[in-house]
């Protein structure tokens, strides 16, 4: 009897372990090899830690793809200062502890000269702690303002922060003469960051926040918050969160006949958002990087050349449009290469020279200074509107 029960259990157990195994299989990431380039000299080793599995994988995967593409291009053109570039990839599994483990491994075992990553703010903050102590230059692709604020030697980041997004939205509202707004933000660190910045900069732009609401990332409905906002005299609603929250809000606002304009943060600026909102999303506004609508970037825009080059190359390699995250990875490695060139191959100076780096990237025009290790301004962000199911630049 006992034996029989065991047998019957065997099949589901085997299936379960198979599923588990194959899920783990995706985590292994072999290091990218760069065979070509300056043959005589040793390669310059750079570490890259991205969230290739786990909840942050939609960020980490395009970042890695963009970096891989760029490494090929750089080595094809003879490498950096005559030496080939070797990028060693690690997966932090969207986990803070794994990220710190990975950076320790890269620093001690692989002796990398600098590290890119990670995709998420939590892992990046953990890595920055270690990198700062070890004086290992780090360029993060995560959003949190705290990564480069306060400034630490050798720690940089490429994405726009919530400060840029806030200022850009307020600038737009000021142009439109809107002075009263409501906010409905995710209660996670990303949304709370926005809540703080919106409060902080509102007086500067003469804007009053008449309702400040929150929602939980997994909430199935935000209609009560929207009903409350509908009852106020707010002239616009700002929503900060990552998908799917903002999409749900847009749909429910339509269901409640809330007619004030909705402005979403760059946290949900991708094609998934368009897919989720369907036809309920006409007229929704969004603040985003220019990479969201590469074909609409003006020809005289300083960024237009590099955006076109990046989009064409990425499209050819992966048969899909790069999103903002791919851009963060691309800019990160480009900045690093820029630093390596300026340091004349002397990798020990890398952390310092980056502080003076100026580089026009796909995310924006980076101008690093001693007290700005993000180097971007709100002017590199654009406002877009959803029209006929597509993002349209708001002029």
């Amino acid at each position: 009897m006992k034996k029989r029960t065991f047998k019957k259990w065997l099949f589901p157990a085997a299936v379960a372990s198979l599923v588990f195994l194959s899920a783990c299989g995706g985590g292994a990431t072999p290091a990218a090899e760069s065979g070509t380039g300056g043959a005589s000299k040793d390669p310059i080793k750079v570490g890259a830690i991205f969230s290739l599995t786990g909840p942050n994988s939609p960020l980490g995967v395009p970042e890695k793809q963009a970096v891989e593409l760029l490494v090929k291009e750089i080595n094809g053109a003879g490498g950096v200062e005559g030496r080939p570039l070797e990028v060693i990839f690690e997966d932090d599994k969207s986990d803070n502890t794994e990220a710190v483990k990975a950076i320790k491994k890269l620093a001690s075992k692989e002796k990398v000269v600098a590290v890119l990553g990670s995709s998420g703010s939590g892992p990046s903050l953990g890595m920055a702690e270690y990198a700062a102590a070890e004086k290992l230059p780090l360029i993060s692709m995560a959003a949190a303002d705290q990564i480069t604020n306060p400034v630490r030697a050798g720690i940089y980041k490429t994405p726009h922060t919530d400060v840029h997004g806030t200022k850009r939205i307020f600038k737009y509202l000021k142009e439109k003469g809107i002075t009263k707004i409501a906010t409905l933000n995710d209660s996670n660190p990303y949304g709370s960051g926005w809540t703080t910045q919106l409060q902080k900069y509102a007086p500067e732009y003469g804007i009053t926040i008449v309702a400040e609401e929150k929602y939980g990332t997994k909430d199935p409905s935000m209609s009560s918050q929207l009903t409350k906002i509908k009852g106020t005299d707010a002239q616009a609603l700002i929503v900060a969160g990552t998908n799917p929250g903002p999409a749900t809000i847009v749909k429910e606002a339509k269901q409640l006949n809330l007619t004030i304009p909705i402005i979403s943060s760059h946290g949900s600026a991708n094609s998934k958002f368009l897919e989720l909102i369907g036809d309920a999303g006409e007229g929704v506004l969004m603040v985003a990087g220019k990479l969201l609508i590469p074909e609409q970037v003006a020809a005289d825009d300083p960024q237009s050349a590099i955006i076109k080059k990046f989009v064409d190359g990425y499209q050819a390699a992966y048969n899909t449009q790069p999103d903002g995250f791919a851009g963060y990875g691309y800019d990160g490695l480009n900045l690093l290469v820029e630093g390596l060139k300026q340091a004349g191959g002397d990798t020990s100076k890398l952390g310092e020279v980056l502080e003076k780096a100026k580089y026009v990237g796909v995310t924006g025009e980076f101008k690093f200074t001693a007290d700005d290790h993000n180097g971007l301004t709100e002017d590199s962000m654009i406002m877009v509107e959803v029209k006929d199911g597509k993002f349209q630049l708001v002029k």
Partner: protein
Amino acid sequence: MTELLQYVANGLVSGGIYAIVAVGFITIYNVSKVINLAQGEFLMLGGMVTVALIGMNLPYGLAALLAILLVTLIGVLMQKYVIAYVKKANPISLIILTIGISTLIRGIASFIWGKDAFALEPITSNEPISIGGVMIAQQSIWILAAVLIILFLLWYLMDKTILGKKINACSVNPMAARLMGISPTKMSMLAFAISGATGAIAGIVIAPLSVTSYDIGVLLGIKGFSAAILGGLGNPLGAAVAAFLLGIVESLGAGYISSGMKDAIAFLVLIGMLLIKPSGIFGERSVGKGGL
């Protein structure tokens, strides 16, 4: 006043969703004394399978029907190959088993469809209907209609048919039922089938309201379970009333107190009510009767 009515209307819709989940819990509990904590996953599967089938260019109605049948089948298989196998186990072990199954289903779903959210077109249009200034989405009306139809059919099945009498018999006294030639195992399988089907229907009607993803079942499962407990475990009507109450309290709490505290307020009310009446609002000493 309009605002208050709007909160109540919003609450009724969430309450309706919780009600379908709660009824699913109770259908299974009544027959087998098992709390099926994979109930939320039935909802998730209903929505996600429909989205996936529509993605394969099947028409909406057919996709929904196939999804309901598939989830019903999963319910039956779950009863046949897991619950019925370990029938000698005590209810607590069975409950823990259902947690395992829910995690497994969620894992497989995230493996197949990824962690992204998906949208499902509304059954009718996206345009809301205004009733005296209170805006109601057309989809919400579908949800409420689905709740009422499911409740009515269940009531009819349980109270008016021989099959329902058999199910009730198993619930009251399995041994006596078996002596009368009723198979409790079959009745339990039927209960899982009903739960699977109602869960899938719920998952399909709620998906267009917001979005659906591999993990929506967790929160809905908890809310539905709370409603089932609050209503007095074992009483479908009580559970439905409790579910609507929970939805309305949540909505009013978010509107008039604090949206960040929405869930906290709802659960505080739940705890308070259970302290006053531990057997639930409509419960009749169900605590001693069942496995909990």
